[in-house]
């Protein structure tokens, strides 16, 4: 049995097969495929990249090249909650650095890193486009405006509590 056929028995690859079929016949869909992969797995696992490369007949090196070019793609697992601290101009002049420093302090990680329990990932972003509320942060898809170093704790506590509730259930 060849590698491909063996692969498709793996539930992980069955998942990939499912969404790959949506992109069949669509020109230039590589980035959309990688976005979908990341939505499914939270990051781009190495074996999935190889699997996709064989399936859509694009060299794995090309996929790797695309995945490392764009800021959105990640090759390592990420936290359940991705905190993105905006360092855009309006946020910068309103003290975004202090917000970032507070997150670093409280989580004990640097931007680009994930906490050991895979709960939080800390990132910085060029602009969230909510400049009127500077300084802003985003946790997954939710935006928080007018941040202060004091509010950092409130935000983290909220997600920690959500986790505790989820664990209890």
């Amino acid at each position, binding site marked *: 049995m060849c590698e491909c056929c063996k692969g498709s028995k793996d539930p992980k690859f069955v998942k990939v097969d499912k969404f790959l079929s949506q992109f069949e016949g669509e020109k230039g*869909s590589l980035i959309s495929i990688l976005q979908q992969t990341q939505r499914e797995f939270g990051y781009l696992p190495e074996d999935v990249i190889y699997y996709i490369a064989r399936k859509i007949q694009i060299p794995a090196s090309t996929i790797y090249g695309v995945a490392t070019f764009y800021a959105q793609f990640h090759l390592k697992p990420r936290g359940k909650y991705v905190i993105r601290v905006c360092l*855009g101009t309006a946020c910068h*002049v309103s003290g975004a650095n202090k917000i970032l420093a507070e997150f670093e302090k409280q989580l004990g990680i640097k931007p680009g890193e994930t906490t050991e329990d895979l709960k939080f990932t800390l990132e910085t972003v*060029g*602009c969230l*486009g*909510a400049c009127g509320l500077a300084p802003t942060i985003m946790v997954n898809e939710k935006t928080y405006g007018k941040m202060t170093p004091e509010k950092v704790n409130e935000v983290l506590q909220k997600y920690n509590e959500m986790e505790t509730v989820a664990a209890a259930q």
Partner: protein
Amino acid sequence: MEKFKSVQDLENLRKKLKDALASSKEKITVRLCGGTGCRASGSPDVHDELVKILKREGLMDVDVSLTHECLESTNKVDIKMTGCQGFCAQGPLMSIAPMGVFYVGVKPEDMEEVVEKTIKKGEIIERLLYHDPASGKTYVKRDENPFYAKQTRVVLKDCGTVDPASIYDYLAEDGYSALVKVLTSMDRKEVIDEVIKSGLRGRGGAGFPTGEKWLGGYKNPSPKKYIICNGDEGDPGAFMDRSVMEGDPHKVIEGMMIGAYAIGCDEGYIYVRAEYPLAVQMLKKAIKDCEELGLLGDNILGTNFSFKLHVREGAGAFVCGESTALTYSIEGKRGMPRVRPPRTNEKGLWDMPTVLNNVETFASIPTILSKGGDWFASIGTANSTGTKTFALTGKVNRTGLVEVPMGLTLRELIFDIGGGILNNKKFKAVQMGGPSGGCIPESQLDLAIDFDSLKKAGAIMGSGGAVVVDEDTCMVDFAKFFLNFIVEESCGKCIPCREGNKRMLEILQRITEGKGKEEDIELLENLGKMIIDCSLCGLGKTAPNPVLSTIKHFRNEYEAHILDKKCPANACTALASYKIDPEKCIGCGKCAKNCPVGAISGEKKKPHVIDQEKCIRCGTCMEVCPKDAIYRG
């Protein structure tokens, strides 16, 4: 709903929608802002609470307003979740028609009172109105508010009024009537002539005349052409395109369809930043609705015109705002710019001729075709016609999204609309045009805003970010901030941009740490000019602008850092000195205990002092002081 087979089908529905609106004139409509800013401030919770109360009070049967299914709805009150209403910092915003009351900062717990007093009795709730800190006045209606009074809304006309998720709402506001006019009464060349007459220049930044760009596409005989809407908007400090895509997606689509008809193309893409999930969602919904009604697809409204539209999400790369990089990204490749010529309109997406415009450019098109090119050209200045939207942010009293006629002065924008500087601080500069732009100092506040005058002043229109900074911002640090962004976003293909900007950043870093050398300013200027001359694409060609413009207008700040080792704004940590206010100090000793180098001394219960020689300027003392007695000065 059946597909429109002819123009008449569409007009029949429009008449029905308008009749329904007219017959319910007494009906109260609550418009709650659903832009990203107001959502972040909690407008979805306000919406849910209001719906709950209205249903309980028997004022509302169905949740949504003007959808086809509930044309005959018995709702006494309708709620519309609109796009960005502009006044972001005051959100969530709520306006109530027909009274025209405009509430700011509404919370779920205010809703009982809003229903009881304003909706049922028409009374005004004083505390929810906008109280202007600059003038001390209170404003009941939106358009009396000085933030809105000086604006002219063309692109944003329906943004904040219509429900972006409802195509019926857009149709009722005469949406797609420009498309109907174009398809039924104008040939392709006439459409382009009208756009040329309007004098519209591309709102993406460089200000290339839109009509001429379209004419190039029109003349190209290729059987396959593409049209692309650039919704990448990577400029930090800008969110106009986002607001338009989120708040009035149909206007962008209608503009693209008119463009596609004019240049003779049947397929298009909207390229949206990955950081804008709501914009993606709204655009996808709008496209789906258009397809279902037959406004997108084959033989639109029974004519020969066919058009297919796709949404592509960017994946986070500032350089993809550049046209050649953007087309590569749509093709699924790394978004690296290439040498031009050939230009994109000769060889673009999949090597086919491609016309690429910005969101705001397309959103201006329907109104231009409805009201005529001459009408648009009558607004603004001779060489920069029409209006321009700005994201006014930073240290101003009233921040938000504004649209003004070209030719308005910066002073009017910042002081009349923006209400002046926050906390009565002193204005220092306004940064226009993002990382490709520059800083404009106080001496040029009376500059009329248009493409050419901004360029002369060392800035650019860019996509329209206007970030105001006050005396507390260090201009060297500010330039460093933009350069830092550029260095991170440079694609690395060409050496001047990849290496040159990095070297400039290192020099700035050195200066802000007090290690600057006398020849650094000249070195920065020379390096900057070289990068502008030699870079491959617009990113590199404009990257040194923030540095060069701050040197031009704030040379004294650079000199203070280099020669006196001082930061005049007290913003650069390495150059700041920490001092203790003896009046406030209670002598608790916390600072001395926490100082990592033992630079603080003093007796218990008596004012302490910091030894400036020993101090490493870490700021720990300021953080731990319980009485705020330590300051930077």
